[in-house]
């Protein structure tokens, strides 16, 4: 990486410009322009539609600080992000380990397909199928009652656990994939070397495998944490009344209340908070990786 950068700067950017131009154009059109429009909106009193009056204001940002509801919801969302990320690690890392180090050939391909499958199904379909599984009289409830000799009521629908289950299911493939990539790059002879030096399987795991797969864990965590903090679909559909989070409030501003300026301001505050968290975590994570 450093070598490539060094070569790039030695030769100068000029020869590469024709090659980079399409990418920069795309970034400008797809990201920079809409984002600038949103920054602009976030400082307005109202949308400039249908000849409505508008003026510049800091009020949308001030709203976040004056009403404790927003910061409470932001904390709830950060906690949700953390919990979902942890569950993804707990479920995804062992799965990635089995895929990379235990399974071989056909069975590896088959399991891989199962892991990737959620990626290929429509997000809404995925969430509604969870709704069918989790609700009272739903698939899980019926199945458990068919097996168990006593009657239990399983109604996870519209609860915090339901939101967690839905989000973990949506995002765990990221963790499996990033960890799989770093794990399968670890030479088996390193594991054998550890064992031959007297380390138990567990010691090899903690001292060799986990440190070497840290980049994958970190990449997976970042890929999951950020979107989960702003998520709104899973909380709304699976969480019901308990599913009010920072992301659903932002969504409300755009699709229900039509207060785009407030929605935009809340989004940028979220972006700032996430960036600050990542910046604070960076030195610690870099040392770990």
């Amino acid at each position, binding site marked *: 990486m450093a070598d490539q950068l060094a070569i790039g700067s030695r030769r100068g950017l000029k020869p590469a410009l024709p090659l980079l131009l399409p990418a920069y154009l795309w970034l400008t059109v797809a990201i920079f322009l809409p984002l600038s429009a949103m920054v602009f909106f976030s400082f307005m009193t109202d949308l400039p539609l249908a000849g409505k009056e508008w003026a510049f204001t800091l009020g949308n940002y001030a709203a976040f600080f004056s009403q404790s509801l927003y910061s409470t919801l932001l904390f709830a969302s950060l906690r949700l992000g953390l919990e979902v990320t942890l569950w993804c690690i707990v479920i995804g890392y062992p799965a990635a380990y089995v895929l990379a180090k235990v399974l071989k050939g056909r069975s590896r391909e088959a399991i891989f397909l199962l892991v990737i499958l959620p990626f290929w199904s429509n997000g809404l379909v995925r969430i509604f199928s969870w709704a069918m599984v989790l609700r009272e009289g739903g698939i899980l409830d019926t199945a458990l009652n068919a097996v168990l000799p006593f009657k239990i009521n399983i109604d996870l629908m519209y609860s915090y656990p339901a939101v967690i289950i839905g989000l973990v299911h949506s995002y765990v493939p990221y963790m499996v994939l990033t960890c799989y990539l770093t794990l399968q790059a670890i*030479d088996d*002879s*390193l594991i*054998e*070397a*550890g*064992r*031959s*030096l*007297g*380390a*138990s399987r567990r*010691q090899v795991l903690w*001292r*060799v495998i986990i*440190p*070497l797969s840290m980049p994958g864990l970190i990449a997976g965590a970042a890929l999951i944490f950020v979107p989960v903090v702003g998520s709104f679909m899973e909380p709304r559909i699976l969480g019901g009344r308990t599913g009010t989070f920072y992301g659903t409030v932002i969504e409300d501003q755009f699709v229900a209340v039509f207060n785009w300026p407030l929605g935009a301001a809340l989004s940028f505050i979220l972006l700032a908070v996430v960036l600050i968290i990542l910046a604070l975590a960076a030195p610690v994570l870099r040392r770990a990786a």
Partner: protein
Amino acid sequence: MAGVQVANVSRSFGAHKALDNVSIDFADGGFYALLGPSGSGKTTLLRQIAGFDFPDAGRIAIGGESVERVPVEKRRIGMVFQNYALFPNMSVADNVAFGLSVRGEPKATIAAEVQRALDLVQLGKLGGRKPHQLSGGQRQRVALARAIVTKPRVLLLDEPLGALDKALRVDMQIELKRIQREIGITTIFVTHDQEEALTMSDRIGILRDGRLVQEGPPEEIYDRPQSEFAATFLGDANIFRGDATGSGIKLPDGTTIAASTGASVPAGAKASCAVRPERIRISTGAAEPDPAGANMLTGQVSKRIFAGNNSTYFVDRDGQTLKVIVQNTGAERLAEGEPVVLSWSPDSTVLVAAA
């Protein structure tokens, strides 16, 4: 320190027999080479001893203690891998310290032992480096230091010098031998390089298709190979095939070759004779006569390769090309195309049963 006993060990992968009833006794403190072509089961045998893989049948003991049910980490072995297998995330010192640190040794002891091991492999000043900052030879030394710092009972090396260039390999051979003598550890060294096996080891075991072909000191295997394969795999040999006569063989054209060493093969059975190229005398036939009873053949020089201290002649004879190596004594050199007489003593001829 301890010897290793391998008794009747077999290991199959599917229908393929990677090890077929192998028995070897590795003496305490000895330097043992396992030699064989690629795929002959050398690595598989080493892995059974290390405990990375388990035999289908047979027994393995280290220091008299049966280890079939002992996991790798409890066998107290040291292993050097062909690709070194250094932990890339740790410094050289941490790599060497690994085995002591998982045992929970006190920090001060670890530091002292690590320094001693690094000094032994002459890398005392490089403890702070990361493996990727080292040359191939240096990585090799770190791998060795890491394997011996825990004071294992046996040192296992799987083609440890295979990735090094020729000059460095020779240096490392000497170095490895020095260290092995210094700590007196039982060493099992896998190689497919016959020269390496000859120069380094006290004993050699030759493997082929999962079977132990021959086992013994290098001189014994070289001077008295028990099969065509052993004769040609360890060193060079001219092979003559014919029918056993009781004191040698008779070639298809009627020529007899006398052999006074090797197996006893009943007269009439198929048998072969092996002769080392440097044991054959080559001349124009005009000079002094050969001693009575010497084996004698005539042929024609087809090629001569001059290598400074010696020359190799390829001699065509009855559809067979024989190889003769002659020391450079300043005597007259033979030209290509010249008719020559080859002669050698029956003492230099080894009789083996036909392959």
